[in-house]
């Protein structure tokens, strides 16, 4: 497959058009700002500068939220009002309850484990000789896309019949230990936990980096004061360092929780939601776009939205409070 510059030209042309349009919008804005009314000038300027972002928010966020909410009260084609029946379906159908249970498992395990692993790792490598190398090792999965990570881990869990060579790392280890290879991704409810491991693998690096920075921000003097006060290493961590970095720990927990609630790619890539591994986002996609159940898919989407919003609000308030404290 050769690279032909001529076949790429239309794309470059579009890039040029896009850039020109962007500059035109900016130019138009600046002209508008300058030629606004003389009275209430502040208001006019604010309106001009906020309008593009506001417009995009309206089109890209507010309208879809309203539209999805409306659709969630309509039938499979979005034509007739059906009242809350999509919601009653969601909370009564055994398969969907299983999906909700799976999402609960994800939210229970991923944030707690990823944060803990990140924290322990950050403490262990802090001020060691190879800190930079050790940290980049754990951080690297962050650079891999969810789909890429899922494919890597699919190979790790890969199954071959007992008499042939194993290509999956996990089964090879089992064989070395004298066990029989397993079809890991079919084995429920273990398979959901194995998928959770993938997200933990990705998020632990993020948790480690953020918490490591918080640990480094604890003044040396305070740790020295604790040493003189008689605290051993364990007590220094539990009674001084951890309480001091606790605000950061909660921010990490919440951030990972939001990510976890929205998880889709891993499930979609590794099992497609089969073998009782589906989660809300995956089920939403299946209902709306594969089974053509627009109403049910929308109801799932609204439910997911309702779960995420409080976490985001808490996060925003926390950030605002730390800013005020500074």
């Amino acid at each position, binding site marked *: 497959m050769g690279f032909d510059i001529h076949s790429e030209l239309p794309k470059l042309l579009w890039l040029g058009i896009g850039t020109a349009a962007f500059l035109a919008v900016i130019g138009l804005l600046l002209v508008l700002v300058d030629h606004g009314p003389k009275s209430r000038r502040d208001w006019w300027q604010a309106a001009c500068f906020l309008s593009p972002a506001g417009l995009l928010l309206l089109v890209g966020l507010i309208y879809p939220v309203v539209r999805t909410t409306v659709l969630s009260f309509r039938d499979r084609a979005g034509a007739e009002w059906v009242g809350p029946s999509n919601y009653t379906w969601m909370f009564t159908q055994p398969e969907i309850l299983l999906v909700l249970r799976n999402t609960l498992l994800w939210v229970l395990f991923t944030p707690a484990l990823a944060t803990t692993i990140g924290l322990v790792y950050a403490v262990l490598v802090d001020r060691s000789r190879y800190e930079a190398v050790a940290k980049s090792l754990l951080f690297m999965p962050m650079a891999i896309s969810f789909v890429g990570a899922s494919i890597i881990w699919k190979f790790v869990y890969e199954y071959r019949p007992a008499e042939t060579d194993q290509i999956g790392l996990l089964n090879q280890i089992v064989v070395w230990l004298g066990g029989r290879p397993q079809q890991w991704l079919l084995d429920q409810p273990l398979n959901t936990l194995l998928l959770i491991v993938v997200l933990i693998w990705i998020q632990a690096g993020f948790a480690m980096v953020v918490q490591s920075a918080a640990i480094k921000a604890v003044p040396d003097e*305070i740790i*020295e004061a604790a040493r*003189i*006060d008689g605290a051993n290493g364990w007590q220094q961590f539990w009674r001084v360092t951890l*309480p*001091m970095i606790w605000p950061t720990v909660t921010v990490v927990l919440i951030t990972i929780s939001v990510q976890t609630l929205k998880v889709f790619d891993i499930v979609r890539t590794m099992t497609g939601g089969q073998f009782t591994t589906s989660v809300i986002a995956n089920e939403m996609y299946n209902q709306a776009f594969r089974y053509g159940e627009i109403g049910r898919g929308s109801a799932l989407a609204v439910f997911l939205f309702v779960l995420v919003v409080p976490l985001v609000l808490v996060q925003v308030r926390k950030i605002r409070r730390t800013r005020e404290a500074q």
Partner: protein
Amino acid sequence: MAKIVLDGVDKVYSGGVKAVDDLNLEITDGEFMVLVGPSGCGKSTALRMIAGLEEITDGELFIGDQVVNDRPPKDRDIAMVFQNYALYPHMSVEQNLAFGLKLRKISKSEIKRRVDEAAAMLGLAPYLKRKPAALSGGQRQRVAMGRAIVREPQAFLMDEPLSNLDAKLRVQMRASLNQLHERLGVTTVYVTHDQVEAMTLGDRVAVLRDGRLQQVDTPKNLFDNPVNLFVAGFIGSPAMNFVGAEMQQDGDAAVLKFADHTLPVPHATLSERPRLRDYFGRQIILGIRPSDFDDASLFPNGGTAMEVTADITEELGTEINVIFGIDAPPVQHEEAAALAADAAGDGELEAAAMPLSGNKSVFTARVNPRSNVRPGGTLELAVDTTQLHYFDKESGLAIGHPANR
């Protein structure tokens, strides 16, 4: 309570930097010892070695009768007050005070007794439930003191505890520290770069430079009998004036000549310091404290006088600092250079203003506030010639000082 002894203590950092060099110091039981010196002189390192926060490269450290080189800080029974207070921000004042006691498994009732007692002593009782963030700088400083006091340790170690307070509060806290030491009588090692703090607080003061101990003595002795140029210039504010002068024999006394001035060396000084006679006909460095000058017109019977032209006058109400030039090149000695660098670094303008003076020595005289001196006017300065300081031009050591014999 206990004495603290440093016996030939060295600190060499990786990379070979010697922060503390063969430090010998004995701090007696109940003594308030101040370590003072310009930044980078090793005073903080010395304190941190006593605390156990830095390893001792060589030599021995005794607290009480025991060598504690290899004991961790928590087993040395010392308490430390840090420059930035190092309070635990997530704990209330009460919890901050009690933390060290809880870790030592002291009974609840005893903890409460000690915390309440310290809080009362330091005026912290109304703030016990507050977090450090809700306290003023002075209050935080007192909590840091309280945390040391409740421990009832063998010794207090203090690392520039007043340097983050504003000037007025610092003077107040300095007085409270003095009172506190009178009351508790705990052996205290106190590090500061502020020589006024050192002089007012210390039973004895140890002056360090480049990791080496220069002189340990009472504040008065340091002021009156500095062992070398560095100590002479570091202790005292405004700093001692230095000028190169030639010593000439004059009958059974002597005179000092510099620029167009001549000062007599009293017979008593020569018999007290016979080694001065070896310097007849040679150049020495003469040191005169600003406070050993005064306006001769107010003391008509005063002995020796110098006529000078005042460049600048600083009227402080209780005194007037008269700054004037002496027509002799400034003293070139590495210790004088070190002092100038330190003063410039600390933002003290006297030394930083040096380049303006060209090839003149800048002198400061502290005269009586009733003097009529005006900038640009001439002034007869009386000199207390019994208080002159004589330094060897090469070594910078005080000539005839008991430690230099």
